[in-house]
């Protein structure tokens, strides 16, 4: 033990009688043990410190960037604040399309042990085929939608029955568009898609108002992933979609649809349409078609059924077009109400022979008689006297051949051939509504012009746009109208239409207490290969009521009615039923002393 000295406190000597070397040896061993332990501890500490230092270098230098990004991703989030889609309301603020929160169902295929069993459990509740569900559950995927925006009842059912599935299935809240009136006004409203974007009808046309603007916020999350509200910074404020107020009256729409459905059932027509318009302002009060689809379940309907036939289908207006001829002839001054047109039941022109329906004969007719009797021969004679140029000009002034400008999508322009192409007997056939095609809306707009002293007003379906607080953002102003025919001419044609209802082909449209102006139409349907289809007709009735102070312009149209097919027989009663109830609803008092220019 050389070199090792035991330090002893001064003044303390080895007690007498004891060997001095023994304590010194024990102390030395004890201190050696202590040194050993201290050395080991020091090494351990150094290693730990080294490890920590290495870890620090690894975290702060080597992996700093990636960890920073990871931390940012975990702590900070961009929150997209979804706006609420605006509602569609009728003219009195009654909701036609609203938002309802619904739940979407998703699966986590990577956590599903038996996809087939999972599919067998889930698919029947969702109304899907188990094979389709199973096909989507690829085990390498971590997320797959099972169904979007399911009804609350379905979600509840799924929760109770699929409780044992644990984390393999999940639910997310999403806003769903709902149409509380079912099929009512389906063709007007259209529908919104799975991501709440307008796809058809008013939903599509007014998307710019309804959609709103999504907001953006930055937010921090806590350790559990919950957003910390106090750290939220709104970068872009969200703007909710505006409510769109339509000109539609829910009650009149229902009346029109109900009466149309009854007519379709009675006549077994393939489809029908009823259009109700305020002639002074151009506001569409109802636009009914039958059959319809349910916008709540639009996937079940075919794309062809989504189309609004009042805007997209063109047809030959038939005898209802005679009022256009009368207006053109009176406006051009080629005839008046007293002039008599004589014939023997046929009219030959350019090798064609024009006859009356059912070979009737009206030997002496004024223009008023021609309208009242719906005489094809008389109309052909008036058209011949009028000439193609003047007739074409009036037709175009009344809005045929161009879309009316209604806000809804897909409006057809119709077909008005230029006068140069009116060879043969085209001029004469156009006189009674064959050889020209128009949409039901165009026909009604032209008739409304006659009720409006010759002014054509642009039809519209947008009444106003309101923000979430109910403030008006946009209000459709009343169109002053553009003159198409002289006011005197319009009044004379109206008087002829009153006569047609009172004593002519439209007597079934007469309404107690109200003066009705109207015109029947029974048009043959053109065949795709040329000519006309045998026994295929479009029956229609065009009416304005009350004729002395017009409030409603109504067009009823039935395609291919079976059995009776005359407009005056099948369409006029529908007009009467709609007009009577709509006038009651609008509180239009009956007038027994109505005076019309005769």
């Amino acid at each position, binding site marked *: 033990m050389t070199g090792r000295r035991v330090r002893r406190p001064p003044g303390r000597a080895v007690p007498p009688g004891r060997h001095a070397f023994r304590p010194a040896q024990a102390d030395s061993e004890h201190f050696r043990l202590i040194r050993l332990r201290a050395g080991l501890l020091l090494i351990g500490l150094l290693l730990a410190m080294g490890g920590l230092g290495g870890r620090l270098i690894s975290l702060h230098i080597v992996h700093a960037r990636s960890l920073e990004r990871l931390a940012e991703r975990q702590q900070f989030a961009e929150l997209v604040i979804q706006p609420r889609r605006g509602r569609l309301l009728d003219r009195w603020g*009654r909701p036609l399309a609203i938002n309802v*929160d619904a739940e979407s169902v998703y699966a986590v295929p990577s956590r599903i042990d038996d996809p087939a069993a999972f599919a067998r459990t889930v698919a029947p509740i969702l109304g899907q085929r188990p094979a389709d569900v199973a096909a989507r559950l690829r085990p390498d995927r971590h997320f797959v939608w099972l169904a979007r925006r399911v009804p609350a009842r379905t979600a509840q059912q799924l929760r109770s029955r699929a409780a044992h599935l644990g984390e393999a299935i999940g639910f997310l809240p999403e806003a769903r568009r709902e149409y*509380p009136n*079912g099929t009512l006004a389906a063709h007007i409203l259209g529908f919104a898609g799975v991501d709440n974007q307008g796809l058809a009808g008013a939903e599509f046309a007014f998307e710019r108002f309804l959609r709103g603007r999504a907001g953006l916020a930055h937010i921090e999350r806590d350790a559990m992933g919950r957003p910390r*509200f*106090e750290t939220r910074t709104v970068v872009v404020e969200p703007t909710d979609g505006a409510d769109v107020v339509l000109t539609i009256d*829910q009650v009149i729409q229902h009346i029109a649809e109900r009466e149309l459905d009854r007519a379709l059932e009675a006549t077994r027509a393939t489809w029908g349409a009823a259009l109700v318009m305020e002639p002074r302002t151009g506001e569409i009060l109802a636009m009914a078609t039958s059959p319809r689809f349910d916008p709540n379940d639009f996937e079940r309907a075919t794309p062809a059924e989504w189309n609004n036939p009042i805007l997209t289908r063109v047809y030959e207006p038939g005898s209802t077009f005679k009022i256009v001829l009368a207006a053109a002839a009176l406006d051009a001054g080629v005839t008046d109400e007293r002039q008599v047109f004589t014939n023997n039941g046929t009219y030959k022109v350019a090798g064609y022979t024009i006859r009356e329906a059912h070979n009737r004969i009206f030997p002496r007719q004024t223009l008023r008689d021609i309208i009242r009797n719906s005489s094809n021969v008389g109309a052909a004679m008036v058209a011949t006297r009028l000439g193609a140029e003047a007739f074409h000009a009036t037709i175009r002034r009344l809005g045929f051949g161009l879309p009316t400008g209604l806000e809804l999508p897909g409006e057809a322009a119709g077909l008005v051939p230029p006068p140069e192409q009116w060879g043969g007997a085209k001029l004469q056939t156009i006189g009674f509504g064959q050889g020209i095609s128009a949409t039901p809306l165009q026909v009604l707009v032209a008739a409304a012009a006659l009720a409006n002293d010759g002014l054509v007003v642009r039809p519209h379906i947008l009444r106003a746009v309101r923000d979430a607080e109910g403030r008006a953002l946009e209000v459709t102003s009343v169109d002053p109208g553009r003159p198409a025919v002289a006011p005197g001419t319009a009044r004379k044609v109206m008087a002829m239409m009153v006569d047609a209802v009172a004593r002519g082909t439209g007597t079934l449209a007469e309404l107690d207490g109200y003066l009705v102006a109207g015109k029947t139409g029974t048009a043959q349907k053109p065949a795709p290969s040329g000519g006309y289809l045998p026994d295929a007709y479009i029956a229609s009735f065009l009416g304005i009521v009350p004729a002395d102070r017009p409030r409603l312009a109504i067009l009823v149209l039935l395609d291919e009615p079976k059995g009776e097919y005359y407009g005056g027989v099948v369409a006029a009663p529908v007009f009467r039923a709609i007009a*009577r109830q709509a006038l009651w609803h609008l509180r239009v008092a009956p007038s027994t002393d109505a005076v019309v220019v005769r």
Partner: protein
Amino acid sequence: MIAPQRRTELFPVRLPERIHRGQPAVRRRPRVHPMVGATVMAVLLTLPAILYVSVRAYRAEAGYTILRLQSELARLRAEHARLASQVAALKSPQRIEHYATTELGMAPPRQHQLATITVGPAIAQVVAPPRDRSVWRTLASWFGKSEAEARERTR
């Protein structure tokens, strides 16, 4: 080494007590116990930190409360929307008509069951009360009220 010895010595002498003439006695600052000082210092140093942490905790708690309330608000809105949808469906003309005709045995009125009541002239007969249209009132209207009222003429 040789050095002179210090010869002066100090002896205690009792002096007469000093008479204070109107001046307050100088009070000695009491000595503060070191533990108290340390405690005060510790409190002064830690109090802002505690306050800061408390405020942060309160903010976080308030944030969670807001989140919870927002969630509740969303739930209530969803419930409101669902109820509004139900109300709209219940008020739909189809349903009301079906209920009226099938359950209540009602039918649409016929023409002779309707009566028209003219109310226009009765409203027109209501006479507006006379109004004070003095010069002063007109001037007051110009300056204190609306221009429209000032321009309004007496009938």
